[in-house]
């Protein structure tokens, strides 16, 4: 048997199996009929998803519960949520609490990362980047890839220029993406302190959001709120209070906590009335 043959076979098996598991996860177990159709038609996207999950596993030092352990209902990864600043209380899989189904599982837990851990050093975050880059190569239309990578690059690794370049790549592939525009605006506002550019980009993001999402029955109001909050903060910092109030007013309509927003509006109004 020529050696190339088994290698090709192995890679095919590994990738197919990986992709299949992933699709199983996403399709939900009741929906296995469509799994194979999906696998054949859009395997490239499936691989991109797989690679994206790899990045998430890297964020957890290789710890990653398989599709058999838990089904993430929203299909979003823990790492992506991390970037949105969620708290760490839902980490229920620490070893002391973990229940093993049988002795083999208990014994086996010595041989892979079976404990929930995050990257210890900030610099370690760089290790997830190759997978995000590969994910973008495989599926340039996966927007998460760009926003997550940009977050790590600029927040943890202090590589603002690389983050900007990557976001621009993403924008070229997804010209209408308000998520990418939002990240880019944030980068200009928080890292570059380039107010006019930040404003322009964030306003463009609003425009795109309104065009794409506003008409939908379930619009992505969380993202809209993030953009508005960012924009309002920007205007407030530069002393453009009426515009800030304007943005906060729009934010109030979609915010889960309209009272807090209202309080901010009132603060600004008093500031404005005081000469």
């Amino acid at each position: 048997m020529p050696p190339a043959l088994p290698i090709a076979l192995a890679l095919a098996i590994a990738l197919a199996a990986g992709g299949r598991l992933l699709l199983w996860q996403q399709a939900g177990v009741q929906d296995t009929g469509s799994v194979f159709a999906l696998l054949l038609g859009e395997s490239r996207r499936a691989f991109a998803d797989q690679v994206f999950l790899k990045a998430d596993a890297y964020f957890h030092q290789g710890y990653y519960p398989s599709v058999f352990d838990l089904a993430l209902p929203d299909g979003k990864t823990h790492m992506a949520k991390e970037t949105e600043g969620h708290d760490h209380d839902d980490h229920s899989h620490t070893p002391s609490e973990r229940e093993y189904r049988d002795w083999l599982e208990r014994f086996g837990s010595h041989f892979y990362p079976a404990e929930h851990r995050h990257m210890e050093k900030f610099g370690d975050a760089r290790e997830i980047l190759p997978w995000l880059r590969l994910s973008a190569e495989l599926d340039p239309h996966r927007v998460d890839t760009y926003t997550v990578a940009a977050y790590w690059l600029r927040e943890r690794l202090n590589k603002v220029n690389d983050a900007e370049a990557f976001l621009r790549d993403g924008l070229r592939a997804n010209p209408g993406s308000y998520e990418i525009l939002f990240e880019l605006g944030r980068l200009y506002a928080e890292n570059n302190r380039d107010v006019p550019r930040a404003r322009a980009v964030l306003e463009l993001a609003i425009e795109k959001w309104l065009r794409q999402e506003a008409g939908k029955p379930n619009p992505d109001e969380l993202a809209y709120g993030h953009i508005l909050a960012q924009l309002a903060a920007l205007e407030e910092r530069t002393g453009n209070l009426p515009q800030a109030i304007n943005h906060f007013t729009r934010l109030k309509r979609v915010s889960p906590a309209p009272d807090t927003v209202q309080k901010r509006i009132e603060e600004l109004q008093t500031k404005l009335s005081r000469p």
Partner: protein
Amino acid sequence: MNTVWALANVVVLEMVRRKDFYVLFILTVLLTGTAGSVNLFNDRSIVRYLKEICLLLIWVSGLVIAITCTARQIPAEREHRTIFPLLAKPVTRAQFLLGKFLGCWLATGLALALFYLFFGLVSASREHSWPVANYLQAGWLHWMMLGIVIAFTLLGSIVFAAPSSNGTICFVCSAGMLLLGRHLNKVALSLAEPLQSLLYGLYFVLPHLELFDVRDLIIHNWELIPWGVVALATLYAAAYAAFFLFAAWLIFRRRALN
């Protein structure tokens, strides 16, 4: 025992003098090198993806070397008829099988040593550390796992006539176990009853090759596995290898050669 060693020695010599092992090694070096030369956000200290790719190649190569080397042993002895002058000498069939097993296992171990040395160089080139004990554990467990695979393949080469079909079967079984072994119990629990017990039973009976796959611990610089656990895993591998060898002997010992 001398007889077994003599037989094993020939197998090792064969691997050293054949080309396919070098092909796999060079392929691993080239692919790892290519992956390492990609510019990722101008950061030269990113290393884990490289470790991951290198280890994946090592695992695939290890399986390929172990299975192809083992699968051809007995068929080649018969095809070239060397089994006749050999078994016409005071060699028992058990010694013959043991010698073949030991030879393939040692040959694979030599290959692994080379591959892991390369891996160490790759990771040290960017991480500037040598966690030798961790690598030893990983390589050792890998080798033990291939012991099971080799014994299984040897059994297969007695049961199935064609070496290529045996090789493919062994490869698919090993890869399947590596990918799914850890989850068989969970899959079993999701099934209805007669199937549930059946699959759960299989889960306990099948050799869990994936236990020996500690790549993620190495990639992400986790702590050492307790040595007692490594010793237990070694015993686990030895038990399965012995079982497959015994089964092979049961079939082979009364087999007419002609």
